[in-house]
């Protein structure tokens, strides 16, 4: 073995504090999740496509030379061409504009529906789990009753009762019992955390209940709740499409992807493009939310981590 002369070495000295210096910026849960989400190429692509769709829904109708409700007798049932990219419907309305206007309604209903039912469900399930005992028992019995009516029946009945179909009433019809599933799931999730050792430790140390809720319960369920929101959005878009097919959805001249698709469905052998574009948008949105949800689950759920 070669000997190295002593003068090649220099004493750099040891600073006792240097061991404690944090070399890299600290990574919290969300940064960590985002880093992991970015590694999932499919999910990132889905996110980009979805943002693109949202972007088009917001801006395309503004810059389009046509209004979505303007009837043009000269240009009825025109196929896709330079003037009308997606063609026109039987009243001569520009489909390109209509598809993006419809997208606004569909996406708003999807996101708002998921958010509303998630919020209500979280509060309800959280209260039930936190108080436990008789309160929990009564609250969960109520949920059981509400869940016992098949979901579609509730939606149909509610939209019939509410008569006037706009985004607000549709959302009400869809979320009136839609939150029950969430409440159940949030409750069981909270109960699990309530029994964890760290909650017990916090209680033993005399941490106030409010702080336990905000520091332990909420952050630990947040990830799963976000994943759930992502997965339930397609369900609301689908329900809206179903209601539109039943004639209980958004009323003309307003429109949505579901309404466009169901209107086109009866004549699609003659004008396939009328069906194609709305359905393509529905399918793309569904797919994006599902793939993003998959990515988020892998990123946010510590248990699913491989």
């Amino acid at each position: 073995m070669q000997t190295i002369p002593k003068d090649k070495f220099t004493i750099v000295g040891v600073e006792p504090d240097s061991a404690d210096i944090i070399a890299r910026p600290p990574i919290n849960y969300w940064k960590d999740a985002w880093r992991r989400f970015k590694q999932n190429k499919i999910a990132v692509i889905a996110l980009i496509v979805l943002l693109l769709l949202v972007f088009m829904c917001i801006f395309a109708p503004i810059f389009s030379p046509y209004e979505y409700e303007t009837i043009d007798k000269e240009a009825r049932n025109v196929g896709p061409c330079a003037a009308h990219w997606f063609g026109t419907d039987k009243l001569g309305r520009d489909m390109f504009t209509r598809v993006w206007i419809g997208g606004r309604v569909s996406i708003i209903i999807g996101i708002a529906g998921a958010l509303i039912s998630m919020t209500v469900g979280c509060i309800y399930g959280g209260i039930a789990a936190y108080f436990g005992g008789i309160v929990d028992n009564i609250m969960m019995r109520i949920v059981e009753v509400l869940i016992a009516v098949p979901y579609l029946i509730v939606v149909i009945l509610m939209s019939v009762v509410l008569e006037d179909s706009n985004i607000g009433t549709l959302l009400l019809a869809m979320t009136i019992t839609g939150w029950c599933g969430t409440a159940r799931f949030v409750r069981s999730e909270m109960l699990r955390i309530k029994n964890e050792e760290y909650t017990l430790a916090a209680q033993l140390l005399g941490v106030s209940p409010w702080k336990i809720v905000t520091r332990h319960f909420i952050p630990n369920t947040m990830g799963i709740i976000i994943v759930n929101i992502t997965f339930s959005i397609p369900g609301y878009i689908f329900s809206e499409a179903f209601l539109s097919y039943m004639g209980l959805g958004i009323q003309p001249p307003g429109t949505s992807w579901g309404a466009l698709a169901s209107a086109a469905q009866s004549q699609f052998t003659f004008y396939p493009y009328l069906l194609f574009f709305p359905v393509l948008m529905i399918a793309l949105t569904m797919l994006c939310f599902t793939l993003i949800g998959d990515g988020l689950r892998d990123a946010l759920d510590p248990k699913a981590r491989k």
Partner: protein
Amino acid sequence: MGKYIIKRTFFAFLTLIAVVTITFFLMRSIPGDPLAGMARALPEETKQAFYAKYGLDKPLFEQYLIYMKGLFHGDLGESIRYAGRPVMKTIAETSPISGLYGGIALVLGTLTGVILGIVAALNKNRWPDYIVMFIAILGTTLPVFVLISLAQWVFGVKLGWLPPSGWGELKHMILPIAVSAFGSVATYARYVKASMLDTLDQDYVLTAKAKGLSDFQVITRHVLRNSLMPSVTIFAGSVVGVFTGAFVTERMFAIPGIGFYYISSINNNDYTMVLGTTVFYAVLFIVMQLVLDIVYTLIDPRIRVSGKK
């Protein structure tokens, strides 16, 4: 165990009464009048006679009591729109039709879905997995009415193999069954694949392999049994879906099933019919959940403990 079942049954019964009550008052609050849908100008006396016949002239709460009394005797009243047609009879005639093709579709779809899910999980990230996931995505991203339109057009019009719609012969059943089954194939394939991949990662599977069991034995004895549990949960939901989810299918294929009548009775403001059918759906759903709960306690000992809370 017996006490648990009795308790569950009691609560199921309470739930049922609550559901009927809610639906009853909801239906009565719907704007519009069943008469308005039939004839415009009726003499006032005829209208009064009509209301009296169906008890619509009585106070709301009395109507409710009468309805509940009838319900306990298995009498759901008479259709308002079609006089002389008891609701019970309509349900008894139409629900077997929905149940028949829906049931076949459910069984076929579930089996296919489970098998495809298993295939996908065992061939993760290889071509069988991709094909199965493509089918699953197709089944979950297309609205059912679009799927039906396409199926009717391709097989009914273009190829001319099957009648696009109608009811009565065996060949009429093939397309509705295929379309309804497609939905369950997609759902089950996804679920089974996910839960199977989960199970494959478990320590006991590793142990089984380490013991020297053949792959076949590991999968049938250890993996399948444990990974099919979540499917049992969604199965109960799909049984009700056979009846409720069929609204679109029955309307588009012109199948005289219960979903078909449900929608038309909603459009006609046929109070008794809508109420009766909703009650029927709710009973079905509640009974299914009760059965599921009991079955669950039988097959999964872990739930027997926590289920009592």
